[in-house]
């Protein structure tokens, strides 16, 4: 769905990203950068910024592989950062030599192919967990509670329409790594999800509307979903005790970038704590920029599900590229989605 919109939008705007002096073309996830940042950058530098959006790593990769040019900066997840490094699609920026880079938390250098951040700048991270309406469900601590909601209360729940996120739940619940490539472990995870499928109303990204109207009682969603529920104290977010995934995106320059100087300037602009903090305030994400974490609104700084304490960081897992083993997940996902 979103993919379709993003694709259409991307295609429509593709032609407009022209190579000229004083321009910068960003290609980012939808709603994943505070527009104020772009405005401040343009006001200060006179560089005109354009923004196209995508809704999955694969969609972005497919377009870049198909030869889309004109984009300067992209925001791949860590495992896609690695893939794009292997494919030689990224430009070495030496951003780690820039003044202000000391602000960046070395714990966010999660890329295996770019461990010193010579290419990309860690951008934002957060967990994928459960939003729930406490009035209906009572306290929820993890996935077992979550899947019990329909039986216990008669209310509905939804999962994300995302192959790896859903498989990760099965892998957590059967005690395996979310990056397992063992067919038996993946089978166990599949069986777990299949056993819970009758309890799941839908696989969808559109849960916020339904949660707000009480049509569902809980949803598997990104921590960024907080943005929909700021004035809804009964809707709470939990990082499930059995395990949760941690996503992170990095800001990378494409090898084909037409505006390399402007792109580098934008990456350096984003090293400033007050700029990075603007994003956190709007996105409810964790920031790689350590001083920025002190500049955000109190309720964000004090919320342990957004500003993650070290013990939480220890129990979350991040996706890595699976190479050929991705096929196992694809087959499992087809089985899960076809089962009646």
């Amino acid at each position: 769905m979103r993919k379709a919109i993003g694709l259409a939008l991307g295609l429509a705007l593709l032609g407009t990203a022209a190579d000229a002096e004083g321009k910068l073309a960003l290609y980012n996830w939808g709603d994943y950068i505070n527009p104020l940042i772009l405005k401040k950058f343009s006001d200060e530098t006179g560089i005109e910024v354009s923004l196209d959006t995508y809704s999955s790593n694969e969609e972005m990769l497919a377009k870049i592989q198909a030869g889309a040019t004109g984009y300067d900066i992209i925001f791949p997840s860590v495992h896609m950062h690695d893939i794009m490094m292997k494919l030689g699609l990224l430009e070495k920026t030496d951003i780690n030599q820039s003044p202000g880079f000391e602000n960046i938390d070395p714990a966010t250098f999660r890329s295996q192919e770019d461990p010193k951040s010579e290419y990309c700048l860690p951008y934002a991270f957060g967990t994928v967990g459960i939003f729930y309406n406490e009035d209906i469900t009572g306290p929820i601590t993890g996935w077992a509670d979550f899947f019990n909601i329909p039986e216990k209360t008669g209310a509905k729940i939804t999962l994300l329409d995302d192959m790896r996120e859903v498989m990760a739940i099965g892998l957590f619940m059967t005690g395996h790594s979310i990056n397992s490539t063992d067919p038996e472990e993946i089978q166990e995870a599949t069986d777990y999800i299949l056993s819970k499928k009758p309890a799941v109303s839908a696989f969808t990204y559109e849960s916020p509307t339904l949660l707000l109207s009480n049509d569902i009682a809980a949803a598997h969603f990104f921590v960024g979903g907080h943005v929909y529920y700021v004035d809804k104290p009964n809707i709470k977010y939990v990082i499930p005790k059995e395990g949760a995934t941690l996503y992170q995106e990095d800001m990378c320059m494409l090898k084909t970038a037409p505006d390399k100087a402007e792109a580098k300037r934008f990456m350096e602009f984003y090293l400033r704590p007050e700029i990075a903090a603007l994003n956190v305030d709007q996105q409810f994400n964790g920031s790689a920029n350590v001083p920025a974490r002190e500049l955000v609104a109190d309720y964000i700084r004090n919320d342990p599900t957004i500003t993650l304490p070290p013990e939480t960081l220890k129990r979350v897992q991040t996706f890595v590229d699976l190479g050929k083993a991705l096929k196992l997940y694809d087959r499992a996902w087809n089985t899960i989605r076809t089962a009646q």
Partner: protein
Amino acid sequence: MALRRDSVVLGVLLAPVTIFLGVFFLVPLLIIAVFSFLTPGLYGGVEWSFYHWNYGRIFGWADGIEEIYEPVYLQILFRSLAFGVLTVALCLVLCYPVAFWVARLPERARLFFLFLVALPFFSSLIVRLYAWLLILKPSGVLNETLIALHIIREPIELLYTPAAVVLGMVYVMVPFMFLPLYAAIDNLDRSLVEASMDLGANRRQTFLKVILPQTIPGIIGGSVIVFIPSVGNFVVPDVLGGAKGLMVGNLVEQQFLSARNWPFGSALSMLIMSVVLAVLLLATARARKAGGQA
């Protein structure tokens, strides 16, 4: 001399459409056909070596190590075909009587009605489907109204059911069925209907022997235009079906994106195209036969 000039003019007139179809239809089709026999690249794309397992996975000659045969793909295809047939049948039943009614309206009312049929095209499909989501959800317009009217006590389960998918498909496809049907019915020779009644045929005989044969081209045209996009549709099952029942369109989309397996996606596309082509050939054969009779 005149003949030569005619063929030059004809060539000039036909050249744009030929080039257009060649570049934007045949070339992509060829790419898909070729890709479906190549090795999948690890990160999307293809490797240029011959690979027949893409079809083996679907039809049952996979090696069992790298590629595994699973009947699930054919099941998904048949399921999608069944949804397509159901959509066609429902659209037909809905549109046929209405087209008769509209054809008898005074001209102004008729034009207004045709404008209404075309109206949905002015907004995006995705926006319209989200509107349906708001209508069908438990706290949505439909359930609230029925409860307020004391017709039901508890909200009915509509959203994220196969029924919602069928409803959404029919909603999307109705205009495509209506317009060709209307064209056929509007052109109906009414003097033949009168003649049939005068000569003693009853209503049922008149309908089956006079009206129906004359409108067959419209029925076939509408059915084909509805069937083809219904089989490949993946937006409706995602939005209104909650992505719980995989359709062949979803499967293709998934192969090109999350599974990064372009050749398998291409093989599945070729499969859909062959089925649709078979249906088309069958339909044109029937239409020709029906045309010959009339």
